[in-house]
């Protein structure tokens, strides 16, 4: 044989290296033999399943599956051996697996088959996707909760009827996915609360069941801390609840009552659950104060003033010509505009972006004609020039004489929700494109490899015999090799794009991260006569993020900035600051000519540069989105472009 390696040693060496590779893999890797017995179980598999390799080697792999797969797996294996009909082999499947504790969790599974001599080995690469699944369902739940609030908000404002309480109780239980919910009213001048509406109570309880304020778990001040660390009131414990959430209705000094939900399964109420309950309480407070104020108040001009001062929805009244009669404090707060300054002004001129004027007016006309708007989402302008997305529900206000005196519009701010949806959609789209790119890259890379190798061979032959007649052939070959290299780099960029964005999070010192990145680019900046600096960062900031991937983002943005400035003397500035308490804002400003108006720099393959692939920014944005952040590019004042990257300091939310 063509090797002089002494037998014995390399096997041991190879085995050890092999083991190291396996153990450093992040995915669980499990091999089984033809009978389903486990022959390999790497370290990631130990962590994922809770079994030690030593305990599980030799056992049937069905042990790692929940019913009914556990019972069926031997049959699958046999059928595959007999018919070659594969269910799992050669594709990625989403299935469930079982930990040692019995807990079932979702996985992504890919199985391959190998033959060693006459033996068959099936190897599976397994990824735990429970986090991803949880994230998706949490987002879905939040969207449902907001729908629910919008509908209740409309009901609350349109009629203060007693059914609003039943409605609220039902939606509260649905929105939080709990078994028990209750709306308790505080009896005036007493420390007792009475159940007015609810879900999951025994018959007769509603209207009669009472509990003392002391047993509510919410103290007199009804502090937020109480809602976060819930106590289960006795009345709910009697129904078997083991976890509860209580939120006061109305202001803390003079609460009108209490919203309570209970769960028979142990669970933690997340921040968004608490926010949902609190918003619902706000709506109810509005409805209840309306009810207490009586019908007279609702009938006439004073209608507006008694309405939902506290509700976290927009309430606005327009006359039939679209002029502002009234809006509530929530809109003042959201838009930065005072009712005093807006009263009598044209709604559309004040609040609607000019490009939407025509559409908004025609929708308003339709509302007046009786086709009320339900759930349409429209852009609204704030005083400082930002746009919010508002979901509107309209109702025509009759004037009592068969005509109308205007339109009541209820709006819910869905900006954040839309942004979350768009980001999710964009991630999905990028993933789809990634799959397509994978195929294309594969199809291109193979012939390109052939072309490149042919050119290299010609060049080598010519270089070995550099006589005059072949010199021109050599030049041609050299050009072919260079062209092939350029194509190879392009293919490489596509590969980078298609690669999955899995993050390896670590704590990063923001200042050092920026300084190091800037230092890397300073040479090139200097050669172009561009001054590249990191602006002073006021406080020490630590970011949880993937250093390599974020470095790629910054590299891309800085490279773009340098190319934008070109050869002319100019400046590029990197900055960082904390915003909204928990977010980091990174900015890269250049003094170049700005982004052309007709190019969306984040859409794939768009580029304003003659040599760009149009992949740099989409890939960067993909990375930022995966971190739970956002990325924008805008004109800077007085000139140039500013690229802003916002990231949660604590890393992507789970």
């Amino acid at each position, binding site marked *: *044989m063509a090797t002089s390696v002494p037998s014995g040693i390399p*096997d041991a060496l190879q085995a050890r290296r092999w083991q190291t590779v396996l153990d450093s893999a992040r995915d669980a890797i499990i091999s089984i033999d033809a009978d389903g017995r486990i022959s390999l179980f790497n370290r990631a598999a130990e962590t994922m399943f809770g079994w030690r390799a030593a305990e599980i080697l030799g056992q049937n792999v069905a042990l790692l599956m929940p019913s009914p797969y556990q019972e069926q797996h031997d049959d699958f294996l046999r059928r595959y051996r007999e018919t070659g009909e594969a269910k799992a082999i050669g594709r990625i499947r989403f299935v469930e697996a079982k930990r040692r504790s019995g807990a079932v969790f979702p996985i992504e599974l890919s199985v391959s088959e190998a033959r060693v001599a006459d033996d068959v080995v099936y190897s599976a690469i397994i990824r735990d996707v429970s986090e991803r699944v949880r994230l998706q369902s949490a987002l879905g739940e939040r969207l449902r909760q907001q729908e629910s609030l919008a509908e209740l908000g409309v009901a609350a404002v349109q009629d203060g009827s007693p059914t609003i309480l039943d409605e609220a109780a039902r939606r509260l239980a649905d929105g939080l996915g709990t078994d028990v919910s209750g709306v308790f009213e505080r009896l005036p001048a007493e420390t007792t609360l009475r159940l007015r509406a609810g879900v999951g109570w025994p018959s007769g309880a509603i209207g009669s069941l009472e509990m003392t304020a002391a047993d509510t778990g919410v103290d007199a001040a009804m502090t937020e801390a109480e809602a976060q660390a819930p106590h289960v009131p006795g009345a709910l414990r009697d129904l078997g609840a083991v976890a509860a959430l209580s939120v006061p209705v109305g202001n803390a000094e003079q609460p009108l009552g209490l919203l309570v939900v209970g769960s028979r399964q142990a669970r933690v109420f997340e921040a968004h659950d608490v926010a949902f309950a609190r918003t619902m309480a706000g709506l109810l407070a509005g409805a209840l104060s309306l009810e207490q104020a009586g019908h007279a108040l609702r009938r006439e001009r004073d209608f507006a003033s008694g309405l939902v001062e506290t509700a976290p929805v927009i309430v606005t009244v327009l006359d039939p010509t679209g002029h502002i009669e009234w809006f509530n404090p929530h809109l003042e707060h959201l838009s930065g505009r005072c009712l005093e300054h807006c009263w009598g002004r044209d709604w559309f001129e004040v609040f609607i972006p000019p490009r939407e004027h025509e559409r908004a007016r025609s929708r308003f006309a339709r509302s007046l004609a009786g086709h009320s708007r339900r759930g349409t989402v429209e852009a609204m302008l704030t005083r400082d020039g930002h746009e919010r997305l508002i979901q509107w529900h309209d109702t025509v206000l009759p004037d009592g004489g068969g005509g109308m005196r205007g339109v009541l519009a209820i709006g819910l701010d869905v900006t954040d929700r839309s942004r979350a949806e768009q980001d999710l959609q964009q991630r999905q789209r990028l993933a789809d494109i990634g799959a397509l790119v994978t195929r294309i890259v594969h199809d291109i890379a*193979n012939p390109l490899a*052939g072309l490149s190798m*042919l050119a290299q061979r010609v060049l080598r*032959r010519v270089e070995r015999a550099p006589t005059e007649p072949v010199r021109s052939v050599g030049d041609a070959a050299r050009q072919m090799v260079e062209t092939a290299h350029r194509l190879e780099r392009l293919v490489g960029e596509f590969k980078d794009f298609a690669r999955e964005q899995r993050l390896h999070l670590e704590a990063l010192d923001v200042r050092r991260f920026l300084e190091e990145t800037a230092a890397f680019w300073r040479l090139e900046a200097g050669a172009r006569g561009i001054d590249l600096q990191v602006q002073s960062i006021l406080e020490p900031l630590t970011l949880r993020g993937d250093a390599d991937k974020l470095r790629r983002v910054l590299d891309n943005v800085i490279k773009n900035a340098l190319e934008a400035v070109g050869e002319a003397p100019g400046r590029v500035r990197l900055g960082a600051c904390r915003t909204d308490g928990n977010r980091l804002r990174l900015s890269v400003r250049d003094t170049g000519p700005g982004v052309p108006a007709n190019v969306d720099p984040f859409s794939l393959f768009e580029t304003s540069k003659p040599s760009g692939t149009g992949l740099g920014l989409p890939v960067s944005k993909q990375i930022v989105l995966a971190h739970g952040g956002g990325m924008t590019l805008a004109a800077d004042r007085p000139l140039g472009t500013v690229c802003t990257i916002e990231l949660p300091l604590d890393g992507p939310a789970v």
Partner: protein
Amino acid sequence: MVPLDCNVMRVLLVDDESSFRSALAGALEDDGHPVSAFGSVEEVPDLTTLADVAVLVTDYDLPGRSGFDLADRLHATFPEIPVIVVTAYRNETVEGAAAIRGHLHVLDKPLDYETVHALLHRLTSVH
């Protein structure tokens, strides 16, 4: 089996991209290495008739059986022959399969002739 001079080793080359196969085979032959080249695993004859093979260079993604299958088949008989797997698209399946086998060299396509040549040299002449 006669031990070959390290500079004259037979390379078993399997790749379904004919331009790549013929160019790499040609370049290796220019450097004096005999090459047996095939377009698929199924075309490779009984391995015992290729006893002078010193190294296997195979594409991963082949029609029919994969390059890994061929590596497994080869190693069942000649466990010490080094294997270089070339792939146009390195993904987790490839990396996982390589990790499971451990002792394979994976190179990305397109590739530089000098890289292959240097690796072949290293694999067959270090001992």
